[in-house]
């Protein structure tokens, strides 16, 4: 079974009110269910269907993902933070697996 590796890049610190860039990368094959493997058999559909980023328990980004998204989905977004807290990043795929990473940021 493939190991799915979630990676995130969040700055360790930020000034209050500073806009910081958050980058996320999930190495995932995003099989559409329409491709044949080397054995001639269709490779079963296996895609990430949802990506959610939360800060201090509050959802800040939520993305529905379709098979048209290429392998290894990469999302980046900006956040303006007033206080320290914990980011939670969660990817859910259509075989029911959940990949989650948390990352602290110190604001002050």
């Amino acid at each position, binding site marked *: *079974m*493939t*190991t*799915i*590796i979630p*990676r995130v*890049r969040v700055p360790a610190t930020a000034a209050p009110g500073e806009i910081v860039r958050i*980058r*996320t*990368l999930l*190495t995932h*094959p995003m*099989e559409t269910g*329409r*491709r*044949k*493997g*080397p*054995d*001639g058999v269709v*490779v079963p559909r296996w895609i990430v269907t949802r990506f959610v980023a939360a800060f201090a328990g509050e959802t800040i980004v939520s993305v529905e993902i379709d098979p048209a998204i*290429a*392998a*290894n989905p*990469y999302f*980046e977004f900006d956040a303006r933070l007033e206080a320290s807290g914990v980011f939670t990043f969660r990817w859910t795929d259509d075989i029911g697996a959940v990949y989650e990473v948390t990352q602290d940021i110190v604001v002050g």
Partner: protein
Amino acid sequence: MLLDRRGAIRAGLAAVAALAAPAVLGQARPRVVVVGGGAGGASFARALAMGGGGGVDVTLIEPSKEYYTCFFGNLYIGGFVEFASLGHSYAGLAVNHAINVVHDWALAIDRDPRQVVLAGGGRVPYDRLVLSPGIDFIEGAIPGWDIAAEARMPHAYKGGTQVALLKAQVAAMPQGGVFALVAPPNPYRCPPGPYERVSMIAHHLRATNPTAKILIFEPKEAFAKQQLFEAGWSDHYPGMIEVLPDAFTGGVERVDAAAMEIVAGGEVTRVDAACVIGPQRAGRIVQVAGLTDATGWAPIDPFTMRARADPFVTVLGDSAQPGDMPKSAFAANSQAKVAAMAILVDLLEAPGFAPRYANVCWSLIDTDDCVRIGAAFAPTPEKIATVDGSAFLSAVGEDAETRRTNYLASLAWYAAITNDMFAGSPSAAATR
């Protein structure tokens, strides 16, 4: 008169030179000098000697006495071909085509009065000059990666010992270790090459070190045959290979070959083996000859491959700005044929011709799973352009027999192009 042995030899050489010089001048055979004996230069030298029918004096300047092809080096890393089978002698060019093969290093080009300056001290006059030195790496582009660092972080992007070194270092990785490939930005030699290399290293590791990981530090938003490689990696090496785009990492800032560290976006990644394929430019001799522009590559006339900067100099292969063509051995060989015909028209008033170019690049992903990309090309005043409708690319999900046929075609191509370059010189493998 008594002469010591050395004196006798000197006298003898002087006599030969005195007889030979007027004879050559009397024949007035035009002199064509080729710098670089790879897919561009060696193919050109042979095509010109054959097409010229003895009417052209051909000199090939190449420092290596035995040439190891960079192409198929990945297959050696994967264990599909022997190292020795990549080595080729220039003897066939000398014996079969009377090409004067000079094993020396071209230091400089004196464009007036048209001479090549050799590291060994000699000067070689030319009527037409062909430069096909391949690529060089841009010095200082990746801080920490210099010629000394290439011992521990080889590029293996010129044939020979660098490729052998990389294979040995991959083989020496600890179980579960990390291999990193730092991919180059466009344009560079062999666009699918870094990804075929990753495939071949994964093929080796799957058998010997299945918990090892491969990281690709990727500066480009997309790379050649990307979907084909991604599907192949998912099929054959699931979970082993991770592509880390610059958008995510922030880009490789520096490497530390002593500590085996790659630093990207302030984050340090410790690796057990690494291949760093740095940003590239035209081979040094094309630069020092003053034939490159701000891009670092040599603009050429798409109809003849002549340098835009000097009609007496032709630039072939990876050093040239090839328009829509990729930098590949196939492309360099194709350009060599056009350039040889153009020079025969120029020097011997051979009939005119309609230049056409071609390219095919094969990439092996796993045993018998080989993909290909290719096209035909034709010159326009601006550039060498893809012929409409000629481009082809393997399809994701195509059948195994097609992929195996591709592999067999790639082996046949290797035999054909090396015969075309070296005039049937037996490869080193065959002689050992």
